[in-house]
């Protein structure tokens, strides 16, 4: 076994600490007021969504441009498909939870809460299949990229009054990608994506004794398509750099709305119904990453991703809706250590991962940002792999100390590992 000096052994840990300190120091100044006040379409946890993240990527800081952990990298940097085994497949399930303080009717004037409210979503997150042959690789991936659930509200005062609010929804992307090696050092990938999802929101107020019910019911069915591309350059056998981009695209939705007032005793039934084609002009996204394999056991990777949110615009039920957003850059770094061992007499590998993510939110009025720590571990035996990853994030800037967390479990199959 190769012997290394103490400084060499300590280098990865020192690098991780250094990355963390750099990210912590980069936190912007405190800001104020309202978070997501009118923005039902805000994805739960963070606005900054680029592709889907499996358990391995999640444990490593959410790295998705610098390194391929599984076929889901096709949704961000498809050039990395050429770094996967000849055949690979994976499934990921996740549980995401986030706290919110100010949303919809809550803490915007109608209902007040003394503390943050939590909501959790259990979901089948990604499914992917990738195949590499010669200088080419192809992949098909589906990933749950956004969820819109909100902590539900249900309150009542005896039998005189009741109010309920429900919002659920998600957006799933379907990606078909191909990559080709260009010479010895470069590879290029291109992905085509379609998205499909829905958002449902219902607010109901009832005065049962008076027989009066007010219903505000809205739903949207999302559609959209975009292209993503990536480029990988292997600077050396140990170091590679990557670039990735997602095109801006128009996410449209078929929106339906029903505002209804019913008075049972008088037979009053007043309805305002609307149908509209809503538009969410999604910004372009560009990122860069670096992947450094320090040794056979240790590796580090880091991503920077730019989101052009200043160009985000919304047309909602025939009206442009103001979104004062700014461009933001997210940063992530992760480190992985692969420990070899034996389990039941079979050689296995136990990868362990940690990472950190800095995730500033685009709202211009509130310079809010999440700082998240990630962790993960896995077990790899022959073609099979199981990984678990998690993240715990805390927000600063809104004054509400919001939390966001996720835990993901991935099952992988890799044939003919390199």
């Amino acid at each position: 076994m190769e012997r290394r000096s103490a400084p060499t052994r300590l280098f990865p840990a020192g690098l991780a600490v250094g990355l963390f300190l750099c990210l912590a120091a980069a936190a912007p100044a405190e800001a104020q007021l309202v978070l997501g006040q009118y923005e039902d379409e805000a994805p739960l946890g963070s606005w900054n969504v680029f592709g889907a993240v499996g358990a391995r990527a999640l444990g490593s800081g959410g790295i998705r441009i610098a390194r391929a952990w599984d076929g889901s990298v096709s949704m961000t940097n498809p050039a990395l498909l050429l770094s996967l085994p000849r055949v690979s497949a994976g499934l990921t399930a996740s549980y995401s939870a986030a706290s919110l303080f100010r949303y919809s009717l809550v803490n915007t004037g109608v209902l007040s809460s003394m503390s943050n409210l939590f909501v959790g979503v259990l979901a089948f997150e990604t499914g992917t299949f990738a195949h590499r042959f010669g200088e080419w690789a192809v992949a098909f991936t589906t990933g749950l990229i956004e969820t819109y659930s909100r902590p539900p509200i249900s309150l009542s005062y005896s039998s005189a009054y009741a109010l309920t609010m429900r919002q659920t929804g998600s957006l799933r992307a379907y990606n078909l990608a191909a990559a080709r090696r260009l010479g010895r050092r470069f590879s290029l990938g291109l992905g085509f994506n379609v998205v499909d999802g829905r958002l449902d929101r219902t607010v109901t107020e009832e005065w049962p004794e008076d027989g009066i019910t007010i219903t505000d019911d809205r739903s949207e069915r999302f559609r959209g398509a975009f292209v993503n591309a990536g480029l990988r350059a292997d600077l050396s056998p140990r170091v590679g750099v990557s670039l990735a981009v997602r095109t801006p695209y128009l996410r449209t939705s078929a929106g339906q709305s029903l505002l209804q007032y019913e008075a049972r005793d008088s037979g009053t039934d007043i309805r305002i119904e609307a149908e509209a084609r809503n538009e969410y002009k999604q910004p372009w996204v560009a990122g860069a990453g670096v992947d450094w394999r320090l040794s056979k056991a240790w590796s580090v990777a880091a991503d920077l991703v730019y989101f052009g949110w200043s160009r985000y615009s919304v047309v909602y039920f025939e009206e442009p809706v103001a979104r004062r957003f700014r461009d933001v850059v997210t940063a992530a770094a992760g480190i992985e250590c692969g420990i070899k061992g034996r389990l039941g007499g079979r050689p296995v590998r136990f990868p362990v991962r940690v990472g950190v993510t800095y995730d500033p939110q685009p709202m211009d009025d509130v310079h809010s940002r999440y700082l998240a720590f990630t962790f993960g571990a896995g077990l790899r035996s022959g073609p099979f792999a199981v990984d678990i990853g998690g993240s715990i994030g805390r927000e600063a800037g809104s004054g509400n100390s919001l939390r966001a967390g996720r835990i993901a479990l991935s099952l992988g199959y890799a044939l003919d590992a390199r």
Partner: protein
Amino acid sequence: MTGKHFAVPACVLATVLSLCISLVPAGPGADGGTDIVSVSAREFRLRGLAAKGLDLLFERRGRVYMVVSREEIASLAAGRVAFTFETARFSPPMPAPAAPAAGGLNGAYHSSLELETELRLLEAAYPQIAGVREIGRSLEGRPIYGLKVSDNPALDENEPAVLFTGCHHAREWISVEVPLLLGRHLLESYASDPAVRSLINGGEIWIVPLVNPDGLEYSIHVYRYWRKNRRANSDGSFGVDLNRNYGYMWGYDNVGSSPTPSSDIYRGTTPFSEPETDAVRRLFAGRDFRAVVSFHSYSQVILYPWAYIAQPSPMDAELSDLARTMSGLMAAVRGTVYAYGPSASGIGYTSNGDTTDWTFGVAGIPSFTIELPPADVDEGGFFNDEAEIDGIFRENLQAMLFLAGRAIGAAPPARLSLRDQDKRRKLPARFKLFRGTPLSPGD
């Protein structure tokens, strides 16, 4: 036909109605100031209307039909004669008011942006008599628009003026539509209706359909029953009740308004603390307003000062007369009865810092809060069917034209001085605190 009436067989009615159409152009008020009204034959005789010199048309199924001028309508209403407008039945229907910008979540009602679009369209269509002014901006930066309907709208001619406002309270969507449709009607009728032309040439009619645009947007997008503006209060609650934020008797007691920020009737930290009410104050300060109507909903009542205290104002009799006439004009359109009375007793509770107490208190002008239909919560509360918008406007139209005519045509009102008020009633202790303070529209 003057001075007599007669029964007609059904077979000739159509011919007579055709003649009516040729005699009376389309729509109430669009005909040079005349309308067709009907009165029950019994009331016609009991009231001795045959001797009034009215232009009678015919009697049919127990009702007497006649052509009347606007002055005669006011006289009928003031005399509590129960009459019904029939013009619309006998003439080609008026074109429905166009709402080119309406749609979306709020249906035929106007959002802030839709209203701006509509006002700009009106201004562009009638540049000689319509001017849109941004009178201020809301807390969230939305413009608050005033539509000035007058000849030479770009000039401040110091003409007598009337102010119609709407939507101090966000959830009262219908209160945007009625003043807006009034503005549209005035502009569209200018060429054909001498009475409207006289109003516009002789005065200024200011219409601020949406005082609370932030609240309205929140009501449309988040919570339909939102009432206040969108002030972020110090205790984490939101909103100031704009109709408790005006300067006259602001905070008189904690019953008619509340010092508690989370209350639906929170009056704010100081009078005119909110940019929305301050915008109205600034508009009011520099002009010679002679009457004010603040549209609200619901209850179907006409209210006049005082609101802050359950005592009659010094002009109680005059305001009551005006309200009675307006109520009669409203009922005549399609039978909708608007009750009327002083605010504090009319709706059964006091409110301080409201719009009309302020305009009446500082300027001594007729000031009315009109709570639009429905009458009660069983009929929809703050909801009105979209199909009802036009009907509610039409039942208010004649009353508004009457009030505007009275205000613009009348001599300037004698400003209420505190001395006058002292003579007429004993003032509450708090009121006396204002003695010696110059009272002007700018207060």
